[in-house]
C-alpha cells in the first residue's frame, strides 16, 4: 500500500478537491465524514479515476468521544492528515442562540483540537508526518458579519501555530491554509466577488504546493495575504465604522 492521507470532513467541496489532488499523485486515501453513503460514492469515484486504495470512515467533528476510536480503527498510521471540516453557521442566529454559536465553535475549533491532538501525538511518537489545517482569513480579524465563525477559526489558526512549533523538533510538518472566498456549497447563494473567489480546485492546488514546499502558512488565493494585511492594520476607530 502506498502512503496514505486522512481527510477529515471529506465530503465538503474543498475536501473532495483535495482528495482528487492527492489521489492523482498516487496517495491512498482515508475519507472521514458524517455521511458514509456519500463518502462511499466518492471512494468509488476516486478509485476509478486514480487507481488508488480508498476507504471511508464515519467521523463527526463534534462527537469528541469517538475521535480516539476512529484513529485506532484506521488501517495503520497515515502519513498525514488534512483537516478540512468547518461550519460557517449563521452570525445573526449565533448572536442570540447559544446552540448555534456553540456548534460553530465546537466544529471549527474544539472538534479540530480534539482529533488533531490525537494525530499530533501519534506523529510525534513516530517522528514524522504532516498536518494540514484549513482555517480561514475570517480568523485574521473579527468582523461584524462573521465574528463567531471568525473567532473559532482564529483559535484554530493559533492552535496550528503552536502545534507547528511543538512538532517541528519531531520532524512533523504543520501547515495552516487560509482560504478567502471559495465557490462551494457553503457559500452558495452568497454574492461573493467573482475576481476574489477561488475554486475548490485552486485551494487543493495550493494545499498540495504548500505540502510539497513545507510552507507554514499559505493564503489561497495569494492576494488574500495582502488584503488581510490591510484589514488587520485598519485602526479600530475606523474599523468599527466599516461594514465588513
Amino acid at each position, binding site marked *: 500500500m502506498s502512503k496514505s492521507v486522512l481527510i477529515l470532513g471529506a*465530503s465538503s*467541496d474543498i475536501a473532495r478537491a483535495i482528495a482528487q489532488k492527492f489521489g492523482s499523485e498516487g496517495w491512498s486515501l482515508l475519507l472521514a465524514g458524517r455521511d458514509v*453513503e*456519500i463518502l462511499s*460514492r*466518492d471512494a*468509488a*469515484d476516486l478509485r*476509478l*479515476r486514480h487507481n488508488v486504495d480508498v476507504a471511508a470512515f464515519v467521523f463527526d467533528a463534534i462527537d469528541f468521544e469517538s475521535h480516539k476510536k476512529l484513529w485506532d480503527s484506521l488501517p495503520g498510521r497515515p502519513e498525514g492528515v488534512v483537516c478540512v471540516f468547518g461550519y460557517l453557521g449563521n452570525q445573526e442566529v449565533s448572536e442570540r442562540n447559544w446552540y448555534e454559536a456553540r456548534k460553530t465553535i465546537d466544529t471549527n475549533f474544539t472538534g479540530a483540537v480534539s482529533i488533531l491532538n490525537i494525530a499530533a501525538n501519534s506523529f510525534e511518537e513516530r517522528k514524522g508526518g504532516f498536518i494540514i489545517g484549513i482555517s480561514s482569513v475570517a480568523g485574521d480579524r473579527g468582523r461584524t458579519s462573521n465574528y463567531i465563525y471568525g473567532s473559532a477559526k482564529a483559535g484554530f489558526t493559533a492552535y496550528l501555530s503552536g502545534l507547528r512549533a511543538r512538532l517541528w523538533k519531531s520532524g512533523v510538518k504543520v501547515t495552516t491554509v487560509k482560504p478567502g472566498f471559495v465557490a462551494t*456549497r457553503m457559500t*452558495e*447563494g452568497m*454574492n461573493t466577488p467573482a475576481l476574489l473567489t477561488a475554486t475548490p480546485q485552486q485551494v487543493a492546488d495550493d494545499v498540495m504546493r504548500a505540502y510539497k514546499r513545507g510552507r507554514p502558512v499559505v493564503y489561497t488565493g495569494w492576494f488574500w495575504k495582502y488584503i488581510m494585511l490591510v484589514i488587520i492594520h485598519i485602526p479600530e476607530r475606523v474599523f468599527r465604522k466599516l461594514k465588513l
Partner: protein
Amino acid sequence: MLAHGWGRYPSIDAKSFTFNSEVELRARLETISSGSAIARGLGRSYGDSSLSENLLSTGRFNRFISFDGATGELVCESGVSLSEILDVFVPRGWFLPVTPGTRFVTVGGAIASDVHGKNHHNAGSLSNHVSWMDILLADGDVARCSKSERGELFLATCAGYGLTGVILRASVRLQRVETAYIRERTIRTKNLDEVLDAFDEQAGWTYSVGWIDCLARGKNLGRSVLMLGEHATRADIKESMEALRPGPVRELAVPFEFPGFFLNTFTVRAFNVAYYGKASSRERIIRYEPFFYPLDGVHNWSRIYGKRGFVQYQLVLPKESGKEGLKKILRVTASKGLGSFLAVLKLFGKEDGPYLSFAKEGYTLALDFPITSSIFVELDELDSIVKGYGGRLYPTKDSRMKKEMFLAGYPRRDKFMEIRSTVDPHRRFESLQSRRLGI
C-alpha cells in the same frame, strides 16, 4: 446571479442550486418558490437551452460510478464532463463513442442535446451509445430508462433539453483506441460541388468535417478544407512515441472580452484566406485534442466576440435539396458580409431515434455571427430559406428562432409533447427556449 449560455446572449437573473445526491436535489426542487427550473451542466449550449429562473447545476454531481474494462461500459453521474472522461480513460485505451466540438460539456448536457460528432455518418448521435440512464422526474421519482425499458421516456429525454426531468446517471459505451493520436488527411477543395462530392467519396473515413470559407464568392463559392480522420493504430505512429500518454498539450486563453469592432469583414477575410492557404492536401499524425477540439485550446474563446456576444446558427438540409440550399445560404451570408469566423460543414448519416434529435440525413452547416443591430432580421431570412428546403435548426445553438420555424423542422414533436405532458404535466421544468418554442 446573471446566467448566460456560451454565446453570452441572452442572459437571465437566475438562482443557481447545486446538489450532491438525488435526496438533496429533491429537497432543492421543493424549495423553489417561483418560476421554473432547468438542469444545467457546464453552460456550453450557446443560447437559452439551459436558462430558466432556477438552475439545477450538476457541478457537484460528478462522480464516476463504475467501469467495465471488458465492454467499455462507463456509468457516471450526469455532471461528469467529457473532458474528465478523456483524461481518465484515454490513457487506458478508451475513447468517447461520439464527441461534439468541445470537451467541456457534461454527460447530462450531451445527452439532453443528443450531440453528434464528426463520425455521425457511421456512429449516429450520442444516444446510440447510451445503454441506460436514471432521470429524476417532476414528481420526485427516479425512473430508469433505456431503449427497451420505458423506451419512450428514453427517446424523449435524449435530445429532450432537460424538459422531461433531471438526468442523474447514465451508462455510456466507450470505444477502444490504440493511441491518443489521429491519422488526419486534409483535402483542399475549390468550391461547394467539390467538397460535397468529396464527402461522399471519402465516406469510408470514420471522422469527416469540412471548413468553409464563407466569404469566397463566384466560382470559389463554398471553397473548403475537408478534414478526415481515423484513430491512429500503434503501427501508424513512431515506435518512440507514447501511444496513450503523450503528455499535456499547450493551451491559450482569451483573458478579456474583445472590443466589439474586433471582428469585421476584413479581419475575418484575412483569417479565412490565411487558413485556406495554409491547409494543403496532406496526411499527418496529430493528437486527438487539436483534431476534435481545435477551440478548446483557447479558453473562453467566445470573448473574442465582445460584450454583445454572438449567435451560432446550425442548420441541416436534406441531402437531395441540400446542395442547392447550401449554395443559396452561402450566397446570402457572403453578399451581406455576415462574416462567420467559423463555418463548419458535415454530411450526416441517418436520422436518430430521439424525437427531437437534430441530425438527419443531409448536410449540416454551422455558422457564427457577432450580434449586430440587424442580425436577427438577417437570420429570419436565412430561416425561411432553411424551411423552404425542408431543413431545421439545432436548438442547442439557438437563442432566437421562432416557434413556427421549430414546428416546421421537427415533425415528431407531438410524440415528444405527449411524453412530456405525462411526466411533467405542470411544466416544472422549462427553459427560456422551451417557452419560446412552445415545447
